[in-house]
């Protein structure tokens, strides 16, 4: 039987392909059967067409800010890493000139001086981070929340580059050693994935308000922007609000009453 190398390689390649496909099918066919099951939303889940948050600066003070940050970071097992280059933060405080760099002026109103501005992911309605994610590990839900799937994230950090607000953190190392007090109902993350505020989707699903909103004593308001009579819409009608970097067109959904 005369066969040359090229012919041999061609046949091996074809057989391998057939073997692979056949094996794949065999696994599927021989796999144990499915079960009848249904997957439901919890009956008391909070739903909305477009979740939005209002930060009322008149009701904001240092203690409230600290409570909000502590609550959020505790129930989400956010590690406390002391190094500003490696830290992970879902919600934190900034001064006016850093939270709103484009709107800063030298002679800022007195009531802004030293005011603690709470900053977090804005869950934009036109999110650039969603646009750039190559695996849809970050996506916008139907209720407007920009959600992350840490199981799918490949850690490319494109979303971090794309976010104009610096809302995202990356796990440069294993976060577990840095978690002060573990919260048993929520998972931790692994090194190599990005994370950010998720508007407490796990709480909304159970009929609870986000932790920061609940503990803020009214300084934070959270409701459906699409409902004309909702709390958020009421505030937006009656008060002047600003948003971070609104000129960029990302349509951020965290409004600040100033």
């Amino acid at each position, binding site marked *: 039987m005369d066969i040359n190398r090229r012919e041999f390689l061609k046949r091996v390649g074809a057989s391998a392909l057939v073997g692979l496909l056949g094996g794949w099918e065999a696994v599927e066919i021989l796999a144990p059967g499915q079960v009848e099951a*249904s997957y439901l*939303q919890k009956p008391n889940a909070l739903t909305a067409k477009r979740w939005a948050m209002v930060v009322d600066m008149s009701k904001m003070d240092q203690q409230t800010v600290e409570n909000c940050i502590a609550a959020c970071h505790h129930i989400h097992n956010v590690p406390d890493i002391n190094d500003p280059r490696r830290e992970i933060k879902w919600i934190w405080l900034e001064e006016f000139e850093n939270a709103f760099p484009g709107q800063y002026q030298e002679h800022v109103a007195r009531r802004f001086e030293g005011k603690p501005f709470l900053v977090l992911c804005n869950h934009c309605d036109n999110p650039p981070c969603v646009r750039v994610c190559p695996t849809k590990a970050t*996506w916008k839900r139907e209720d407007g929340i920009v959600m992350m799937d840490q199981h799918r994230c490949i850690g490319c950090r494109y979303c971090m580059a794309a976010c104009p607000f610096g809302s995202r953190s990356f796990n440069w190392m294993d976060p577990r050693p840095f978690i002060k007090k573990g919260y*048993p109902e929520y998972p931790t993350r*692994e090194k190599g994935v990005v994370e950010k505020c998720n508007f407490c989707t796990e709480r909304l*699903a159970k009929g609870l308000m986000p932790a920061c909103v609940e503990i803020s004593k009214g300084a934070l308001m959270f409701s459906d922007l699409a409902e004309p009579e909702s709390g958020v819409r009421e505030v937006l009608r009656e008060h002047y609000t600003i948003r971070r970097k609104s000129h960029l067109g990302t349509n951020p959904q965290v409004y600040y009453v100033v």
Partner: protein
Amino acid sequence: MGDETKKVINALRETGFFKPQTIYDSRKVIIGIIILFGVVGFTFFYNMGKASKAPEPELTTPDIQGLPEAERVCVEPREYMKANHMRLLNEWRDQVVRRGKRDYVGFTKKKYTMSLQNTCLECHSNYDEFCSRCHQYSGITPYCWSCHVNKPKEWAAGKFKE
């Protein structure tokens, strides 16, 4: 010996298949073959006669014992869970994270919250004797546990830091 077999043997004989051949470097070749069989065979002979029994996962946790007899059922039948718990957990993951559905209704017709660390480990609170026992035996390391707390009660008590 059948006719067909005879035909095949004759055909081979004609090609010179049965003619004595010269083996070059025969000593090296034979030593090599012996070493090969020795190394590969060792993995069989070392364990010959010894059976490594598959461990039984421990199902008697205080949380399970605390339930009335009739309620000591998992979300799906035991045989199904044995073979499919990984698939089930993957499906739960996609439903919870990507579709926002958190309630599961299986063969018991009861509603369960789809959560590895909050539902599964509620009853199966003995990670070491339940999950780990079989995983170690099979030599697999699912990395669910690097995020999903595998000892939530200890974690809450501050006793257990991974």
